[in-house]
């Protein structure tokens, strides 16, 4: 992608509320943005360090609950609540990252699933705090001075800013020696260690940043839907994130954003076009086709197509697997 394409995309994203007429379309755009943040978060772990976290909804849920509880029970305003939500999710990421050092691959996957399961059970059973399965209604909309983010258009820009920030963080990290260290651990851990890459440090760092971003997504979700329930820990959220990352292109910067957009818009588009059964069928068939024909994801495939006849295409970052 050239610089001009990038500016065009940014301009498109910034003016989107002008193009979208109905609030429903704007709602889809907001959800795509929130899932964009979540997918970027998962990609940092799955795409760059190669560790699959199937409990990512836990960090999302921790962010959502923390933010909701602080604003509801302690009357905090949105911004400090958001900061604490991100920090708490990061702390959880720290512990999971420490665990990841002892457990890799399938064992790490199991631990993350269990972690999400435990956190979910806490949210259901600690009724005094979380109101149990009934959830917490009435989460306030954020405000900044005199402006409220009550309208969809305003909230869209808030989510867009979060998306942009997350993308920037990922981009800076990936294109630095930190990103190279993460990829080195994914590609060949013993060799990475032999040249001084500290496994502990970098796996924990990736887990913390990833969890913090998921927490950010969770907080944004809570204050958008204005309601948090144990459903935020549902396994489907994690699976959706994984689909977005894998279909978009794991280990690429744009992949999760493309994946999140596609897999938020698509089910909604199908909903309008067909009955429920046909929707699920079409969704499933598309997923199988994607994995079958574009195993590395949409973005790497697009990069190759656009490079066309030119000699081997340059990746848009030196450490990105194509």
């Amino acid at each position, binding site marked *: 992608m050239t610089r001009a394409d990038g500016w065009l995309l940014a301009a498109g994203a910034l003016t989107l509320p002008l193009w979208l007429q109905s609030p429903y379309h704007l709602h889809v755009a907001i959800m795509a943005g929130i899932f964009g943040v979540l997918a970027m978060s998962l990609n940092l772990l799955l795409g760059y360090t190669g560790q699959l976290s199937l409990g990512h909804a836990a960090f999302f849920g921790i962010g959502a609950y923390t933010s909701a509880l602080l604003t509801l029970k302690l009357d905090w305003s949105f911004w400090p609540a958001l900061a604490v939500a991100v920090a708490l999710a990061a702390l959880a990421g720290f512990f999971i990252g420490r665990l990841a050092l002892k457990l890799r691959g399938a064992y790490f996957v199991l631990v993350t699933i269990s972690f999400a399961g435990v956190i979910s059970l806490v949210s259901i059973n600690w009724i005094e705090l979380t109101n149990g399965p009934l959830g917490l209604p009435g989460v306030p909309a954020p405000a900044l001075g005199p402006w409220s983010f009550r309208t969809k258009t305003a909230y869209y820009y808030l989510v867009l800013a979060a998306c942009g920030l997350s993308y920037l963080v990922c981009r800076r990290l990936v294109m630095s020696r930190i990103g190279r260290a993460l990829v080195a651990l994914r590609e060949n851990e013993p060799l990475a260690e032999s040249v001084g890459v500290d*496994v502990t440090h970098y796996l924990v760092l990736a887990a913390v940043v990833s969890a913090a971003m998921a927490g950010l997504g969770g907080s944004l979700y809570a204050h958008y839907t204005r309601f948090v329930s144990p459903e935020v820990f549902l396994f489907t959220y994690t699976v959706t994130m994984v689909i977005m990352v894998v279909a978009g292109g794991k280990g690429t910067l744009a992949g999760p954003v493309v994946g999140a957009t596609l897999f938020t818009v698509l089910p909604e588009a199908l909903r309008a076009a067909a009955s429920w059964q046909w929707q699920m069928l079409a969704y499933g068939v598309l997923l199988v086709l994607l994995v079958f024909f574009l195993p590395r994801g949409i973005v790497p495939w697009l990069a190759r197509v656009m490079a066309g006849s030119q000699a081997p295409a340059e990746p848009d970052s030196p450490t990105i697997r194509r």
Partner: protein
Amino acid sequence: MLAVRDLAVRFGGVTALESVSFEVRPGSITSVIGPNGAGKTTAFNAITGYLRPTGGLVTYDGAPLTGLRPSAIARRGIVRTFQKTSVFPALSVEDNVLIGLHLRGTAGFFAVLAGGRRLTAEERALSSQARAVIDFVGLGHRRREAASALAYGEQRLVELAVALAAKPRVLLLDEPGAGMTGSEKAVVSGLIRRVREQGLTVLLVEHDMRMVMGISDTVIVLNGGRVIAEGSPAAIQAHPEVIRAYLGASAGST
């Protein structure tokens, strides 16, 4: 100076290293040879932290290395390569070497997020260092290619480049010439000599006797987890115990 004292490694009931002691003179090329299963690679793994020895001590300039993680040992300037070809396959030769330069960089998490001129300058400096190392091993024309796309001999050179990028003071090479053609081995031998001229200490495990005898200052012979001989290449070639270890008992006994 790298010193190994009474190093012992046991896997359950199997003794891989019984009690190995040797010193590697700074600025020398020292080879470790021995029949298969003599414990050469085990010794390498124990020295570089990939294996926790059952007993004994490894020190560098008097400071103990035993018990440190491999990355911490690399930080002290002791860098190794692996017997089986070990590169970052999906990454370009340049990225491979840039990872090797990891410890040359200083930018931490917040510096990276903040960006700025110093970060850009550091990245540029790392790139030019990477280029220099790649040119040194003669892979300048392959810089942009994925390591996995390279021929076997070239991949071994990438491996060497990655290790050299880490700016070692002691370089441990595990069979750098294995599986290479004669002319490729000559290239590797030449590189090892040039590396030594730059002041590095080289410790290598190698099976190719012509290569070992051609470049080593000192040769250490391992057999059955013990050092059975140590000396100049000429002395080793004439050593009766070495001949016995390599050719069998009857050949050595006259």
